[in-house]
């Protein structure tokens, strides 16, 4: 094969690759753009013509309407509060436990850790019913407690952070030990600062998981005042099946924070997926 034709065929291959990637990319983006376009179309035209791509003018009042009509502000506050609390709680409790599993010696350490790992395979539907009954006994149903506390403890987070802590060379702590640093001092001043990528990865994964969580909030909240965004959106859909402009506006509001977190922390997010996949 002459070098000329080889360059040509390579160019052809690259061209085809770009064509393929663009077609897939467009099919990923077009539905999302269509959601935004629909959310800005005229709310009076309930029968929306799909042939008309762009709104006649930008009907921002749709956002105002969805905001007021279903008390979206309240749902947004609930979602934000719950998600931030769950994320902070998971990172805090998981990092403490992961430090113990990675750095301390204690009775039955490896057996307890194996127990943690084993529960990773228990379907959430198995624990869901007894936890619901427990919260009902505590009279926590329809409260922030029910939304936050059961979600604050994560075997997965403990596992993820333990793997990362193990990869930090112990030599770094020796100096701290000689200086008379306590275990907590080592955790606080040596391990945590060195683990920012892993902590960020866990925080982002938890944030997005908690933000879009639907089944659990649906089960433990019964009144509008306690609804998180996904539950509020679902109940809104039951009330107004045909108001697609408002439904899409609500969906945009729900999706934006996740997009924002992803764009800010993309690097950590993707690293977190890789670390999480390397089991054991």
């Amino acid at each position, binding site marked *: 094969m002459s070098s000329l034709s080889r360059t040509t065929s390579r160019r052809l291959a690259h061209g085809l690759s*770009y064509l393929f*990637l663009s077609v*897939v*990319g467009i099919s*990923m983006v077009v539905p*999302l753009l*269509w*959601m935004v376009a629909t959310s800005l179309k005229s709310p009076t035209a309930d029968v929306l*013509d*799909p042939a008309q791509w762009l709104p006649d003018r930008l009907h921002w009042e749709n956002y105002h309407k969805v905001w007021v009509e279903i008390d979206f502000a309240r749902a947004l506050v609930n979602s934000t509060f719950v998600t931030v609390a769950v994320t902070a709680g998971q990172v*805090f*409790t*998981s990092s*403490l*436990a992961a430090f*113990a599993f990675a750095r*301390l*010696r*204690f009775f039955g350490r490896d057996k307890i850790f194996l*127990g*943690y790992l084993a*529960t990773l*395979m*228990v*379907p*959430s*539907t*198995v624990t*869901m*019913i*007894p936890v*619901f009954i*427990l919260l*009902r006994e505590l009279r926590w149903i329809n409260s922030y407690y029910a939304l936050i*506390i059961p979600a604050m*403890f994560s*075997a997965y987070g*403990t596992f993820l952070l333990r793997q990362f802590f193990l990869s930090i060379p112990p030599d770094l702590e*020796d100096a701290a030990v000689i200086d008379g640093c306590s*275990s907590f001092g080592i955790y606080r001043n040596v391990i945590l600062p060195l683990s920012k990528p892993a902590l960020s990865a866990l925080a982002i994964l938890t944030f997005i998981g908690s*933000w*879009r969580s*639907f*089944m659990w909030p*649906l*089960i433990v909240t019964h009144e509008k005042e306690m609804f998180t*965004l*996904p539950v509020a*959106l*679902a109940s809104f*859909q039951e009330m107004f099946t045909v108001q697609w402009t408002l439904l*899409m506006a*609500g*969906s945009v509001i*729900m*999706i934006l924070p996740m*997009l924002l977190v*992803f764009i800010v922390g*993309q690097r950590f997010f993707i690293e977190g997926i890789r670390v999480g*996949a390397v089991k054991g």
Partner: protein
Amino acid sequence: MRKKGTPVKWRENLTALAFLSPNLIGFLIFTLLPVLAGFLLSLCHWDLFHPPRFVGLRNFVDLLGWYTDEGKVHANDPRFWKYLGNTFFLMMGIPINMAASLLLAMVLNQKLVGRTFFRTIFFLPTICMGVGVMLLWMWILNPEFGLLNYLLSLVNIQGPAWLKSYAWAKPSLMMMQLWVAMGGTSMILYLAGLQGIPPELYEAADVDGASGWDRFRHITLPLLTPTTFFIFITSVIGGFQGGFDAAYIMTRGGPDGATTTISYYIFSHAFEWFNMGYAAAIAVVLFGLVLVVTLINWRYGGKRVHYV
């Protein structure tokens, strides 16, 4: 620092307990005890309003058993088997999604300008997934005014009723799942796997005059087996437990139960009909299914099957 063999002192145990306890207490209360309680509950009848009644294996007989009538075999709970079938049907999307992810990863794994850009774009649906995306797809799949049937009408195809059609409801959900997942986690894992393949192998294959298909068949695919196995197992485990959110939002499990999965059935028994014991029994059966897959993973997953 500490040497192996030194007796672990009570002080060290206490320190460890202090670190462990916030997580461990939550773990005991919200995971370990509920698992045990779930098994116990599966042996009871309980409607939440009267005291629970121990019924032994009755729930499991009602769920999995059968009877014969005029020589015909009938399941005690035909709905369970139907919904189990639905769950398996939806899981047939897994290999399709995986093939799409692998294809995307292989195209992205070239020296192309804008790789990171495309990777980010492909990841968007995975990030956005949730009730918002489900509502969006309901709108896209709307038979009269949806985007999809409009695009089909441009090429003179009369699109089906999608989510409102018994035959098309499950394929509709699988289509959405493909859109959501093909550029997501699996693609990232496949990209990492592809980057771990030594380039010398491909160079050697070139010297031997191997075709592109040969290289894929005899180098890429075998060396990616661990990744493939991992993605497949985690997807199957997720698949057994999945399907609730989308079905609840988009179809309410219909039409005529076409999209009801096992997790939806558990939800209905527990939180719509208040059959706590029966719901727990279904959950225990689901746990058993997941356990079998996990054991297969432990038995064969560690071996890192590939042929080099």
